[in-house]
């Protein structure tokens, strides 16, 4: 069955540190990839998405992600985090089987940025 894995469950960084959150999926075919963020007390918001083309995708608030097909990965990066990036981050994948529109989410990574 298709699945999505996020290996970092809780990450603590100081401001200005660089961030990389891992996301891997299990499926050999074409997928669409998403990163969502949930700030404290707020609902899920889209950070960025990849459908096709340049595997390096830039999103909002300085985030980017790189799709590496050979590694089935879509890692999220930010060169310098801010305290306001404290949130939970979810990787999600749309697989082309059944209802292609539904998203399969990872378990999330809680990011805590210390001042």
């Amino acid at each position: 069955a298709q699945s999505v894995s996020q290996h970092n469950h809780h990450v603590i960084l100081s401001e200005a540190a660089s961030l990389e959150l891992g996301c891997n999926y299990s499926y050999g075919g074409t997928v669409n990839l998403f990163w969502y963020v949930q700030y404290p007390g707020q609902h899920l918001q889209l950070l960025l998405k990849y459908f096709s083309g340049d595997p390096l995708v830039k999103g909002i608030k300085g985030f980017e992600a790189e799709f590496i097909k050979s590694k089935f990965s879509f890692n999220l990066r930010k060169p310098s985090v801010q305290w306001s990036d404290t949130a939970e981050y979810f990787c999600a994948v749309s697989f082309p089987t059944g209802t292609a529109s539904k998203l399969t989410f990872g378990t999330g990574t809680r990011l805590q940025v210390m001042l």
Partner: protein
Amino acid sequence: GAGVSQTPSNKVTEKGKYVELRCDPISGHTALYWYRQSLGQGPEFLIYFQGTGAADDSGLPNDRFFAVRPEGSVSTLKIQRTERGDSAVYLCASSLRGGSGRPSTDTQYFGPGTRLTVL
């Protein structure tokens, strides 16, 4: 409206009771999804509507769960004979088109969720 809205924001009920959770999608969005998020987990798919019809209900855990979208806009998720294990945040999302048979390029926009607690 400007975004997806869900009511109520919190619902506390007793085991065995019936509950209804409402979702109001973004105007003009034909696709509507329900997800459930348990503590420490990512959202899990429940059901997908394309217009008025449930195109995929494969995520509904059992026949106590049912959802409707009679006019292709507002949707209601109904849970009968609630159990403590139903406690979770129920999320609704909508997208412009949806789609099937290929990975969708639609973006799903999520509501704030309804936190259901079954005592």
